[in-house]
């Protein structure tokens, strides 16, 4: 029982980590909490729904197409709504409100196009139950865990080992200096949004396959939980998001079994508010120095 709870929590946590990485990446570069990320996640899940259920193409094409479209949506959000604000050098509050507006637009358009009811999504990676002695592991969960882990490793390699990752880290440290070194800052920002959108699409597809439902508002709560995870681990720090995601996932799984399902969503908020009060920069966060 205890093992089962831990495993449930770890699976959920890995998926939250995937969403949280999207927040973290964008925050690292733009110092902006991308409020639209939750609705981008819901968008990804809906694209996967169209491909996997309406067109019957199977789960892997669904994943790939969803990654491409959601990544493009991420780039579009940046190009259409955020880039003009950067060029105008608006206050940070302006970008924040813009992303809230964008999230609202996407979420409600999804609702108009697909209807607000929950739609069935096929179970993914269903190969029965794997037995290890007394412990039985659901193969769906195992695969979700492994796929998320793989993607997180892949993202880390992109950021740490490739040239574009180097450019991303440079922009994160100082956009102006990076620009002077010949880095195309706008391209890097777009690429970051693509990565964020892609990871959100994967998370959306995995979670839809796990709970077997898709609905337009799914991004709101999931986005907030992932955001709690990102803040807990220290927003802008990649491995922090993973740890944060796991903590949020585990505590959610324990809360469901000890306090009942009604408090499923409340745990993440309690964690969020506690972290914000006690240590706003998160566990691994770097302290920012305000220069005058």
């Amino acid at each position, binding site marked *: 029982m205890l093992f089962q709870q831990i495993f449930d929590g770890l699976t959920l946590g890995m998926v939250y980590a995937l969403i949280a990485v999207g927040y973290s990446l964008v925050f690292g570069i733009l110092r*902006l*909490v991308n409020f639209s990320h939750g609705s981008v996640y819901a968008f990804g899940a809906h694209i996967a729904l169209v491909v996997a259920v309406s067109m019957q193409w199977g789960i892997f094409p669904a994943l790939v197409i969803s990654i491409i479209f959601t990544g493009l949506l991420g780039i579009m959000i940046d190009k259409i*709504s955020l880039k*003009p*604000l950067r060029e105008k050098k*608006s206050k*940070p*509050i*302006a970008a*924040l*409100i*813009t992303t*809230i*507006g*964008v*999230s*609202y*637009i996407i979420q*409600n*358009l999804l609702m*108009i196009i697909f209807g607000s009811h929950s739609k069935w999504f096929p179970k993914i990676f269903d190969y029965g139950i794997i037995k290890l002695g007394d412990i039985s592991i659901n193969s769906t969960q195992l695969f979700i865990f492994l796929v998320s882990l793989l993607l997180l490793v892949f993202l880390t390699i992109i950021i740490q080992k490739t040239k574009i990752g180097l450019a991303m880290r440079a922009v994160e440290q100082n956009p102006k200096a990076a620009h002077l070194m010949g880095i195309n800052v706008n391209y890097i920002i777009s690429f970051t949004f693509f990565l964020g959108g892609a990871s959100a699409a994967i998370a959306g597809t995995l979670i839809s396959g796990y709970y077997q439902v898709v609905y337009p508002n799914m991004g*709101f709560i999931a986005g*907030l939980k992932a*955001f*709690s995870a990102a*803040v807990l681990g220290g927003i802008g720090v990649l491995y922090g998001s993973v740890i944060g995601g796991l903590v949020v996932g585990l505590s959610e799984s324990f809360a469901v079994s000890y306090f009942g399902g*009604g*408090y499923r*969503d*409340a745990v993440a*908020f*309690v964690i*969020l*508010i506690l972290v*914000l*009060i006690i240590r*706003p920069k998160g566990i691994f966060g770097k302290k920012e120095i*305000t220069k*005058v």
Partner: protein
Amino acid sequence: MKNRLMENVNNFIMLMEKKKSVKFSVYGAVFLVMLIIPKIGLPMFMVRIMTMIGMYVILSMSLNLITGYTGQVSIGHAGFCAIGAYTSALISLNFGTNFFITALLGAVVAGIFGLLLGLPTLRLSGTYLTIATLGFGEVIRMVILNWESLTNGPLGITKIPRPVFFGIELTSLNGGLYYLVWILVIITTVVIYRIIRSKMGRALMAIREDELVSKLMGIKTVNLKIYAFIISAFFAGLAGSYYAHMIRYIDPNTFTFDTSIMIISIVIFGGMGTIKGMFLGSALLISFPEVLRFLQEYRFVVFGLILVLMIRFRPQGILGGQSRRDYKMPKGVNLEKIMKEG
């Protein structure tokens, strides 16, 4: 075309600000029209829309104090509303207390929660604060949903008594609810106006422009931000309790994230940091789904678009921007004399 229109609007505002007689005659005319609206046989739903506009004026004015004047974006304002509504409804149902007392209690309880939410501002700023307010709004909703022994959970509270004023039950039919909300609007406007024209108001605006600098100037930014939160929550709670007694039914889904977004849309649309803007913004955004029926489905999309487009093309809102009023010198200071003497 658009520029001409804006120019005319600007000229009119300038005229109003410059000439006292124009200003007072416009306000007087508006006041008289407002006074007779429920009595001239307009359809019921129009009076009702006017009532809703009044409620949203209170809400947007309260949010304006923290977002427009202090620069702290809150998107959990519906939480305060819900607290006010539930407190007021539960007290009046369980103890049979008059609306005017329960509404005040509801507002005070919301104010206490405003203090609780204001406390994290000791350490948070900007985005983090916004998220905290969002989390706050959701936690309030979940507590209401799950605390069934007190709040009746998802079924909500029904048969909340209407406000009674010296034995007269205020209903939509006799226009009582309409007058009540606009009296509350006047009270709110006067209080907020006095606050922003006081030393505290100027300090709040200094915090909005640059928190670090205002701290260095000796402004107690932390205290002031918390005060702003308390006052804002108080009025949001007041509006919430009014709503509960007007509709006579509340449930956890009455005040959701949508409500918060609507309020902040009004604030941004009307013009952050203006009072007139709150009236205009509420009037336009509340009446537009009724006027443009065919857009009903796209209502919330339009709210999103308003947020994005306003921030992009006119961040100060319709009526925002720099005041064209001449700067009033303090008593005993004669600028010309000083200039002459060097």
